[in-house]
């Protein structure tokens, strides 16, 4: 596209005019998508379209044309994203494969999907297929089932969550080793955090190898959630990675340089305990909105656990030196600190730093 633009004579002054539009286009796009990663692309796209059409636009109309174009470009992106979001639950890519190997993979996927569908119960399967394949909307489905649209939508979500899990199991040809596995995987698949806590999903993933690997694609789906980050801790470099990530996430809030350093250091300490005493574990860094804005760090492992939490947490307020687990120091660094440890089942540290009130800066 850029080759034709450059090839044409007389676009010299037009491109200068278009260049003048950049700040305005940027503003329009910015107002609609904020700091969306695609913002720059949208600006470029708009300018390219305006430039391409600049010869046919009457003088003085360039600006209004650019405004309309920018709006259209943004709207197109939202439509695309919306479609992607609606289709995100689909586990297979429906586009045509290009190579023979891909065809093989597709066949494999289709048979896995067929097996997965077979494991759903009859009613679930029928509703899902009617909705997804025949395109019957939830309201009509609700009427024929004597239910409400909301209940049908919730049921569909649960079915999709199960289907994803069954599909993954079928594709990998595994049968989960314990009866805790399925509920955990379904909870992860549905992205239902309360349910995940109920079935102690995070704990189970640390203990069950099969689920840990099966859950990867399920978690990646949920990973898009704004301001939440999960980092696996297994070796020394992970400690540095986790604390940099914590600093990065925290910097989205109104934390000063000292607080960022305090957070990074606290994360460093708890991660080290994971590597030293449990071998491996994970850290979840999350932005909190309520009751106040803040940053929460959950560090979890399935290690031997701390024999005496009380002892681990006491070092007197101002005694320096005795390093131990460093947990009392970490508690001093953070605003909230909770330690749960179960002998043989690992340790979970949950700690929070609240955003400071704004009036003192």
């Amino acid at each position, binding site marked *: 596209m850029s080759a034709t633009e450059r090839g044409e004579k007389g676009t010299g002054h037009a491109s200068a005019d278009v260049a003048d539009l950049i700040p305005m286009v940027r503003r329009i796009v910015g107002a609609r998508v904020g700091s969306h990663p695609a913002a720059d692309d949208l600006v470029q796209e708009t300018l390219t379209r305006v430039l391409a059409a600049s010869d046919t636009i009457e003088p003085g109309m360039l600006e209004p044309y650019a405004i309309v174009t920018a709006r259209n470009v943004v709207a197109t992106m939202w439509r695309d994203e919306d479609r992607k979001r609606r289709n995100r639950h689909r586990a297979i890519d429906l586009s045509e494969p290009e190579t023979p190997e891909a065809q093989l993979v597709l066949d494999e996927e289709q048979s896995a999907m067929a097996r997965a569908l077979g494991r759903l119960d009859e009613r679930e399967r029928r509703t899902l297929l009617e909705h997804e394949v025949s395109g019957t909307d939830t309201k009509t489905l609700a009427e024929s089932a004597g239910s409400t649209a909301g209940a049908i939508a919730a049921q569909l979500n649960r079915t999709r969550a199960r289907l994803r899990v069954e599909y993954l199991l079928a594709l990998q040809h595994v049968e989960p080793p314990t009866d805790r596995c399925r509920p955990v995987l379904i909870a992860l698949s549905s992205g239902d955090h309360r349910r995940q806590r109920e079935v102690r999903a995070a704990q189970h993933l640390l203990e069950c190898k099969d689920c840990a690997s099966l859950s990867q694609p399920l978690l990646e789906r949920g990973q898009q959630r704004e301001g939440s980050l999960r980092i696996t801790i297994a070796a020394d470099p992970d400690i540095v990675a986790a604390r940099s990530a914590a600093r990065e996430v925290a910097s989205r809030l109104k934390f000063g340089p000292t607080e960022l*350093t305090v957070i990074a250091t606290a994360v460093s300490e708890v991660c080290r305990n994971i590597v030293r005493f449990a071998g491996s574990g994970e850290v979840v860094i999350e932005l909190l909105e309520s009751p106040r804005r803040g940053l929460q760090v959950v560090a979890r492992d399935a290690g031997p656990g701390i024999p005496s939490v009380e002892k681990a947490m006491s070092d007197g307020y101002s005694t320096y030196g005795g390093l131990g687990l460093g947990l009392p*120091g970490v508690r001093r*660094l953070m605003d909230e600190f909770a330690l749960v440890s179960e002998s043989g089942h690992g340790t979970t540290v949950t700690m929070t730093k609240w955003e400071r009130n704004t009036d003192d800066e």
Partner: protein
Amino acid sequence: MNGGPALVSIMRQGSNLIASVHTALDDSELVRFERDLVDQIGEFRSRGVIIDVAALDVIDSFAALTLRRIAEMARLRGAVTVLVGIQPEVAFTMVRLGIGTGDVPTALDLEEGLEMLARTAPHPASGADGRR
């Protein structure tokens, strides 16, 4: 030390060694740094060691412990260690966490650190008998 950009550089200047940490180090890298530095202190019979940690955005308990251990090993080999460049936020965090540098002297930056070494060791070990 090994492949890739150097994480740490150790320079010899007269009877002093100047070690600058260039980036965040993980625990194994800290341990390697400790070993390298202590080796060189012995090899060059240094009288003074400056460790510049200005590039460290986090000094946690392990890093502090390592730095103290280096200073102690240096002392056993007859060298004085000065720690320079601890950032304000890092200093604040270290004391909140309850860690310090023990008896290891500190200075604002490299310049101050060199001056402190000059004050501490009045005769630069130009003579052959660097040791007592």
